[in-house]
Each structure stands twice: as C-alpha cells, then as structure tokens.
C-alpha cells in the first residue's frame, strides 16, 4: 500500500519548520550586520565580542559548577531510587514512584514558586546553593526514569543465576548490576547535566540577585538588549548539544 503524499509533505514541512529558525540563527552568527533580514558580510566579530564578555564567563562558570554538583547528587539519588523501585513491589515503592514522576508533569513555574517560598520560610539565603538544591530535585526524576527503563529491559535471571552460583549481594551489585547499568547511569548523568545547564524558569525563581547562570544571562540579553552575540553563543551551545546527544545515543544503544 502506498503511504500517500499528504503525510509525507506535512512531515517535510514540520522538519523545515523545526530547522529554519535554527539555521538562520547559525547563519546570522557569522553576519556582519546586526539584523537578520540582510546578510552583509561574513564576519567572526560576534564570536570575538562574546569571548571578551566577562559576564558570560562568570555565568558559564556558575552553570558548570551547579551542573556538576546537581548531576553528581542526582545520579546517586536516582540510581538508588531506580534500584529500590525495581527490586521491591511494596506500597511504599508505589508512593516513591509517584514522588518521582510528579515533578516531571508539574509545570516548572509551580516548582519554582514552591521552592522559593520554601527557602524564604526557612530563611535560607538565595544563591548558588539554592539553585543547586532545586536542580538536583528535578534531575533526580529524569535519572531515575532512564535507569528504571534500562532495568525493566534487563534479564532478572542473570541475578538469580549469580545468586545460585554463590555470589553475595555485594558481588551481584559489583559484578552484574554496575557493568550493566553503567551506560544508563552515564546517559542519566548527561541528561541531568544538560537539563541543569539549560534550566531557566526554576533557576529564575530561586537564584536571587547574585547567582547568574548561563540561561539567566541569555534571558537578560534576549529581554533587554538583543545583541547578535546570542547568535554566536547559540551556535556554540547547539554544537555542544549535538555532541552530548550523539554520545548518549551511543551509550544507550551499545550492545551489552
């Protein structure tokens, strides 16, 4: 049976719709002129300007620090959570699982205002530390989901066989679970690092005045002085994103 022309055309249009803004953005990062309407000459001046921007480097450093620690803690918490939910089918785990996936459904703005109120009521000073706490909170859910998906596809008889052959709990963990799960753990870590680096809404609520992360810096550029250095920054970030996706695809699809 033939597939029909309309679905094919719509698919092509959707792909074009998704990519045209990004492609024009990239072209414009090399555009001498400030406006996207006319390309005057090829130039790297926006990249040079971006590199000399002190505030950008500061924001980038903050983002990397927060991303690193949020990833570290959320990977530990998420791995434990996935193992608990997979191993025990108790009522406690049902509640546990609902705790894990509700943050995925709740809009960012609710999570942002909730955490802000929480920090205000407890008199915790807003800054990098509160941003780290917030990021870890939403990253845990994603890490758990990635690892749980891997666990559910995995053959439990391997563990039973190992136990029958006399392996201890710790040996099973060390020799079977860790090697089997490490690609999923790495993919979860990449995902939470990307999410942390990219988060704006929640960060905006809990950052206070001092902690400018990269998205907050970009937001202030977009909102107030939309200079083409964002184009240059966008191209660099898109390239990094491509590398991250490619690596995580490799990690998850690798045959074990």
């Amino acid at each position, binding site marked *: *049976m033939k*597939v*029909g022309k*309309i*679905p094919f055309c*719509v*698919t092509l249009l*959707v*792909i074009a*719709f*998704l*990519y045209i*803004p*990004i492609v*024009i*953005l990239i072209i414009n990062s090399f555009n001498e002129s400030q*406006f*996207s*309407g006319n390309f005057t000459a090829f130039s790297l001046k926006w990249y040079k300007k971006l590199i000399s921007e002190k505030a950008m480097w500061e924001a980038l450093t903050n983002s990397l620090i927060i991303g690193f620690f949020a990833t570290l803690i959320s990977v530990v*918490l998420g791995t*434990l*959570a996935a193992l*608990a939910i997979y191993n*025990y089918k108790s009522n*406690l*785990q049902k509640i546990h699982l609902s*705790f894990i996936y*509700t*943050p995925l*459904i*709740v*809009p*960012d*703005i*609710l*999570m942002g*205002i909730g*955490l802000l*109120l*929480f920090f*205000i*009521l407890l008199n915790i000073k807003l800054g990098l530390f509160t941003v780290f706490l917030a990021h*870890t909170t939403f990253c845990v*859910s994603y890490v*758990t989901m990635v690892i749980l998906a891997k666990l559910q596809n995995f053959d439990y008889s391997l563990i039973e066989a190992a136990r029958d052959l006399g392996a201890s709990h710790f040996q099973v963990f060390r020799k079977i679970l860790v090697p089997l799960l490490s690609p999923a753990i790495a993919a979860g870590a990449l995902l939470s690092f990307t999410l942390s680096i*990219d988060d704006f*809404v929640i960060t*905006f*609520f809990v950052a206070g005045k001092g902690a400018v992360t990269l998205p907050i810096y*970009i*937001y202030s550029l*977009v*909102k107030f002085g*939309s200079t083409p250095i964002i*184009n240059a920054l*966008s191209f660099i*970030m*898109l390239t990094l994103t*491509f590398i991250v*996706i490619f690596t995580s695809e490799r990690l998850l699809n690798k045959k074990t």
Partner: protein
Amino acid sequence: MRKSLSKAEILLTLPSFGWLFTFFFVPTAIVFALGFKSTTSQGGIGEQWTLETMGKLFNIHYLVLIARTVYLSAVTTIICIALALPVGYYLARAPVRLRNLLLMLIIVPFWSSFLIRIFAWKSLLHPEGFIKQWLAYFHIINDETTLLYNSGAVVLVMVYTYLPFGILPIYAAASKFNFHLLEAAMDLGATRMQAFIKIFIPLLKQAILTAAILVFVPAIGAYVIPDLVGGTQSEMIGNKIAQKTLLDRNLPLASALSTLLGVTIALPALAILYFQKKSKSYILEKKGIE
C-alpha cells in the same frame, strides 16, 4: 498481605524519598497553603487563615486571564495534534533508516536550549528580521504590521517548542498500528482520507489523549514564551504568577494563582484518567458477557 519493610529497602528508598519529600512535596504543600493566608499591607504573609486571597481571583481581570491561558493552550494543543497525526503516520510507515533519521531530527531541537529557540523566533519575527522583510517584500503584509508581541506569536512559538511532545506518543502508537486495517477499508471502497479519519484516528485515541496532555500541561504553565514574544494582550497565568512573586512580592496572591494553575492542569488530567478507567471497565464487562 502486608510484608514488613526490609532494612535494605529502607536504605535504598530513603535518600531519594527524603530529598523529594523535602524539596518537592513540602514546597508544593506550602504553595497550596499560602493561598489561604491573608496579605499584610506591605504584601507580606499575614497571620490568619482566610478565603479572601482566593476570593480575589474571582474578578473579571483574572477570569479573562484564565480564559485566555486556557484558550491559547488549547489552540496550541490542537495545532500540535493536527501536525503530529500525519507525521506520526508517516514515520510509522517510512523505511527504517529514514524513520530513524527523521526521529533524530525531530528530537534534536528539543534537546537544545529552550531560550535559544525562543530567541531564534524573536529575531525572525523582529521588524528587521527575515520573515517580516520577506512578507513585506511580497506585499503580504504592510510595513506597519508587527509580527511580535501578540497572541499569534505566542501560539507559534509554543507549537514550535511543544511539537515533539505531540509527535512522539502518536508515533509510538502508530508504529504498533495494524496498517492492514486501512487497506481493508480501502478495499471496501473508502478513500485514503476516509480510512485515515474513520479508522486510524479513532484507534489512536489513547495516544492522542496522551499527546494532548503532554502539550497542554506545559503550555498552560508557560511563562517565558508569553514573556518574551507576547504582549500585554497575550499575558498568561504564568506571567501573573511571576509578576506577583518577583515584582510585587505578594506571595499569598501568587500562591493562590499557582493553586489555580495546578487545578486547571489537574482537572483535565483527572477527567481523562476517569474516562480511561470507565472505558477500561466497559471493555472488561463486554469481555465478561462474551
């Protein structure tokens, strides 16, 4: 039967459970509770419990805001589903290599920075931007038309941002769909379009509902998109919450608005859950009869 919890289970569960209880459950509960607190004259949190703050939401200003938020989110959802259906159908039928390539192409922008995608549209729609220049060149619009800072721009960028959420569940269901059914319908004289509408769409109802929720929920909580490409006439609940929290510092009122947002999301989700349960028990009953 109730099994007592083992030490190992508690050790494995406690870290993430405790973390999410403290930093997710408690803050959410605070939001709902503060909506029932009074506001002091400085905009601080008052002592007594009251319904006054919640009551403030029932004026025309907020009702318009809520109606607009629901309307813009619904339009976004409908457009996303209308695009996702043919795309999901095509992906399910495309040769494997092409399909994987297209799926990758659909997912990649979704991984890239959210703000950068909005910025890309903002500069495209800008008066000196690409689209405006072209449309004016072909005399489709005149020089005075502004493409930015209106509801149209908000819907456009929301569709752009949330479209993958619509496509992926529909594709997942379509890839398990038995396409012989469509052939059978066409052998019996249906046109391709009729087969698509009368068989493909009804059988994918579940996936379409999932896709609709996945688009509708983030759309209704949207804040950055209306803030950056919308104008005063396209303000949404998210903008008001941010304004009351960050500018006016009226935390009880912001909480009341957030509660309202939570309810607006929970209602359709619960309705769909209820509906699904009902149709499930209906199917079970039918099976029992047979």
